[in-house]
């Protein structure tokens, strides 16, 4: 199968993730959409790796997974602490600092 189709899929997933970040209101869901974007990047890396016949892209995909895991640790810690003090994880409620 033509690997370029996977590129289109990666771009589509990335767009869905980006749209989700902008549209959704729950911090956890926003964060999941960011993870979806990172996974779209992984798909693109692996696909280009296949296209070019070198392994760089596959190695980078592993790095991305590790980085995404580290981001989950930090991100969930921050979101959970926000939820515990406000009883809400809505990004709209967090508006103490409006101009």
């Amino acid at each position: 199968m033509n690997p370029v189709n996977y590129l289109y899929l990666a771009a589509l997933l990335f767009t869905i993730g980006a749209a989700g970040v902008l549209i959704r209101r729950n911090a956890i869901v926003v964060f999941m959409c960011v993870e979806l974007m990172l996974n779209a990047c992984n798909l693109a890396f692996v696909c280009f790796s296949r296209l070019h016949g070198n392994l760089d892209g596959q190695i980078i995909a592993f790095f991305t997974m590790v980085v995404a895991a580290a981001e989950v640790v930090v991100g969930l810690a921050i979101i959970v602490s926000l939820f515990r003090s406000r009883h809400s994880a809505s990004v709209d409620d967090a508006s103490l600092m409006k101009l």
Partner: protein
Amino acid sequence: MSSSAVHSLWTTAAEGKLDKIPAPHIEYAQLAPTLIVLGAALIGVLVEAFVPRRSRYYVQVFLSVVALAAAFAAVVGLAAGGYGTTKAHIAAMGAIAVDGPALFLQGTILLASVVAVFTFAERRLDPEAHGNRVDSFAAQAASVPGSDSEQAAVKAGFTTTEVFPLALFAVSGMLVFPAANDLLTLFVALEVFSLPLYLLCALARRKRLMSQEAAVKYFLLGAFSSAFLLFGIALLYGYAGSVSYATIADVVSGSVQNVDPALAGTMGNDALLLIGGAMILMGLLFKVGAVPFHMWTPDVYQGAPTPVTGFMAAATKVAAFGALLRLLYVVLPGMSWDWRPVMWGVAIITMLGGAVVAITQTDIKRLLAYSSIAHAGFILAGVIATNADGISSVLFYLGAYSFVTIGAFAVVTLVRDAGGEATHLSKWAGLGRRSPLVAAVFAVFLLAFAGIPLTSGFSGKFAVFKAAAEGGAGALVVVGVISSAVAAFFYIRVIVLMFFSEPKADGPTVAVPSALTTAAIGVGVAVTLVLGVAPQYFLDLAHNASVFVR
């Protein structure tokens, strides 16, 4: 290349047909600055685990300052050994560049971090809680604000000494960021310095809800922007078949040898190059805080603990501009006709946007945040120059700006009332009558931000605008001067407010700091005046350091 090529890479390795894989050759001595800081950060984590709680603070402060000083000594040693000029080369199997701009920016980041760690360690500003001295950080970050567990933590005298290893981790990422010589290292370094910063933002002792909100905003937007950066990296990798800066630069400029069929196919696809380059730029401009990617800056600067804000404003900007310079000058010079108009636009709206919106601010930290956006615009004007003077002027500007910023935020920590720092501008009225010295020092920093002669801000702005004008960006210089004038208005307005209005009866008090914050502010004033009065030595230093290795 045939579609089974990748598969065969695995199978031949499994069947033992390949020769031994050679071990990578790492030049540890030349990576010493980063390794020292990273090692100290790891030791800091162990200190948290094994050292008794009451002595952790002293051990952590000592460890951080010693490590940062040692790393700075290593940078100076490398520069003295000629690695900034004649022996500049690419180390660690092509991952890290050891060259003039990298060493200059690493030195700047390390010195700024030492000063920032001084402000982190300050424990005299808040009144003592239950007989324990407290710093600017939450007693226990995990306890809910206003809860019993928080009160118990304060009563027990807990302090979040984890801030020191977190800061060291962030610094180690920042040291790699401007030296990264492939896109993967760039991405990993970005995350290594961003993740600790997200956490540091959430750790304020006072106004904790605001601090947590700042952390959530910074985290979500930061993760969003780094996803864009990563997709940009994927597209550039697809375009060039490699993430190494040198290879991509060759492919972009069309001077690549032995083009295989797959590369020939992707090389012809300009969409990959243009969209990929734009997305990477987006990620870097976000970290720099340039309009239209600046939305996080005011909220995060306002909500984060003020010492962290100073650290972030100074060191992040230095690291991010270093990476931006290297990307534009080393990787994408072949398409400068494509990126220059875009960067022109970004620089113009950043300068004007930052300066104009800052006028309406009523909070001193938000005001400094918008001022930092305007300064990002001025630095971008130097970046656009695309000549050697452009690089050296940006290096100089970053060095000058970072110390002024840390000093200014250190002064902000001193002006306090019952609720902690009094950041609303109305409370600063008449400060000059009540405590002339603090107000005078802050006035010096504001004048440096405004770019008044005899301060470092003037030398920096002059160098940047001169480089931009020589680089054919005269219109940009005109916009820069206009927005400098706009910016000068609100800096001067704060000075007028401090010195020429009556102090209020219930106004804030100025806390007497320990030697730590005094040293941070003193260094800020000294650097401001030295770089303003006698900048030539440092301009020469930046000039000698202004050649990127390819």
